[in-house]
């Protein structure tokens, strides 16, 4: 069923646009990305670069004014964009691709106990659920066999223990507000891992947390996904967080990927001018952060060619005309730039 190579997800030339008052905003404009099995892929970029839209496109939960135009999202060899909607709902989203949201405060239903929300996830998305179980009204009334219900509930409690919720069985009877932000994010991680997914999409899961809690959560998430061989798409605007947890990093700028590299290579040899300037803008002891200058371009009428060229010190005529093709800096380090930083300029 799965492709022979170890790429779990292949995003190819994906374009998503939104109809807005000012025209069509090309939020994703030819994005390419691969995620291997068991890998944590960091998706880094500033607000408006399209990282959340990409995450939502993979989950199939784009807002109603979004239009898929072209491209493909191959997950385990099958194109999610061409898969029947019903199959995505039933077998992919929430089951094989799950989600950890940014804000653990707004993402639980405040009126239901944690246990009931966990059981709801397991009822519909547990790996024990038969593939062709009923849907709609029929599904609503169909049997949830006692044996499966018990096994699912036991799994859920076990998962709460795994994410180090104190007194996990009592936690089932509590309401979301009784937990702190850090604990709620632990619960979110538990819910995301309960269906035993292949891919977890984590959308800035630690931005709402304090730094010591962030360190705890990153440590936990990294350990759990590595133990289970789950792949993660980890979106963040914080390069420090990306350094902590990711195996590879993809940088996005204005709806396109610009650089993709293994984490150590990425921080040792950043090659795209945007990446370099981004790293220079971080506050570091002993030096002033350097600003990038200019503003992030609008997506209704983005610059032609390389979208970074109006802000780039290295830009030449070719940069205005055509988006650079993917070139390799080294084995696994890909780049879209005509004038890579720190490299000899190819003729």
């Amino acid at each position, binding site marked *: 069923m799965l492709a022979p190579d170890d790429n779990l997800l292949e995003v190819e030339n994906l374009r998503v646009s939104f109809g807005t008052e000012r025209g069509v905003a090309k939020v994703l404009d030819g994005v390419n990305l691969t995620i291997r099995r068991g890998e944590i892929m960091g998706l880094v970029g*500033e607000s408006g670069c399209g990282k959340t839209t990409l995450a939502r496109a993979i989950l199939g939960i784009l807002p109603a004014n979004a239009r898929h135009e072209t491209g493909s999202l191959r997950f385990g060899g099958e194109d999610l964009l061409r898969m029947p909607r019903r199959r995505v709902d039933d077998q992919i989203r929430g089951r094989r691709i799950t989600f950890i949201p940014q804000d653990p405060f707004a993402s639980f239903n405040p009126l239901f106990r944690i246990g009931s929300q966990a059981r709801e996830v397991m009822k519909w998305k547990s790996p024990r659920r038969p593939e062709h179980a009923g849907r709609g009204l029929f599904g609503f009334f169909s049997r949830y066999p006692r044996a499966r219900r018990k096994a699912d509930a036991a799994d859920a409690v076990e998962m709460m223990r795994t994410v180090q919720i104190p007194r996990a069985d009592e936690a089932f009877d509590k309401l979301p507000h009784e937990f702190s932000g850090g604990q709620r994010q632990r619960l979110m991680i538990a819910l995301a891992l309960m269906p035993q997914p292949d891919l977890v999409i984590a959308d800035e899961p630690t931005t709402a947390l304090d730094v010591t809690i962030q360190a705890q959560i990153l*440590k936990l998430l990294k350990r759990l996904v590595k133990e289970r061989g789950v792949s993660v798409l980890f979106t963040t605007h914080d390069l420090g967080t990306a350094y*902590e947890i990711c195996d590879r990093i993809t940088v996005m700028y204005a709806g396109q990927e610009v650089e993709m590299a293994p984490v150590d290579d990425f921080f040792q040899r950043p090659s795209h001018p945007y990446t370099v300037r981004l790293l220079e803008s971080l506050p570091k002891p002993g030096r002033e952060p350097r600003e990038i200058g200019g503003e992030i371009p609008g997506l209704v009428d983005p610059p032609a060619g390389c979208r970074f060229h109006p802000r780039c010190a290295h830009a030449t005529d070719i940069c205005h005309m055509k988006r650079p093709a993917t070139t390799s800096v080294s084995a696994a380090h890909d780049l879209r730039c005509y004038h890579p930083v720190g490299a000899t300029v190819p003729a």
Partner: protein
Amino acid sequence: MREAPILKADRLSRHFPVRNAFGIRTGAVRALDGVSFEVAPGETLGIVGESGCGKSTLGKALVGIHPLSGGAIVFEGEEISRLSGRERRAVAPRLQYCHQDPGNSLDPRWTVRRSLEEPLIVHTELEAAERVIRIRDLLRQVGLPQTHLDLYPHELSGGQQRRVGLARILALHPRLVVLDEPTSGLDMSVQATVLKLFGELRQAFALTYLFISHDLSVVRMMCDRVAVMYLGRIVEIAPTETLFRAPQHPYTQSLLAAIPDIGGRRVTDTFTLEGEPPDPARLPSGCRFRTRCPRAVAACAETDPALRPLRPDHAAACLLAG
């Protein structure tokens, strides 16, 4: 002899009552619990800590947004915490507060021009024409084009809103500005620009900053001295470089260990602090950090350690420090 402090906080406390379902007081959250420090003119003092440690309450108490439950604030030699009404208003232009979220602190129905003019109308005797000149100057100093005067807050980006917020404060030529989380919610590249602006304005206006932030790398870059808060108390205060190089309080040590260090060892491999801060309405006995402290001993449960100087400019509230 050091210069006389511009601001002196003396055992500030601010308690919020906790009430039960019948509205009867059952306890208090001590958001500030005996906080004392001094700020020298021209200095930038950083206040760091995690959510709920009282750092925002401290900022708001200093400028009079929160009334104090106890303690005294001396600003430019004048005790201001007991002033009220007209007298307090006379201090306000010199002691300003920069809100955390500039988007929400600007009136959405006011243009930039009107937002900038309001403090001048309230606090100065300037004529309309003079106000216009002052507003144009301000806008230039915070790096915004004159065309932005007629825009509404929603037409500005986060970084630009921050600039308008700053211009509004600088309109009155303050001496001390309390910056409450001035970089939260900004993108990396915008943050760099805004931090640079803070530095330039400090020079241009001879400002003193109280820089409240949870972002330690920003604080390290901006501040001369740093105070670390935990559950309503200052647990350590020292010059920035001393604090980052040789932190003495176990909490400061954990806080520093949690910052990602690009190119260095990964926090996910090395971080050891367990647990979360206790409920501020039910503090543990003795030292407030002992429930999470890796070095806690029996004495920590009995004695509540006071902030004690380890060296002339370095103090920590820990029995084991030094």
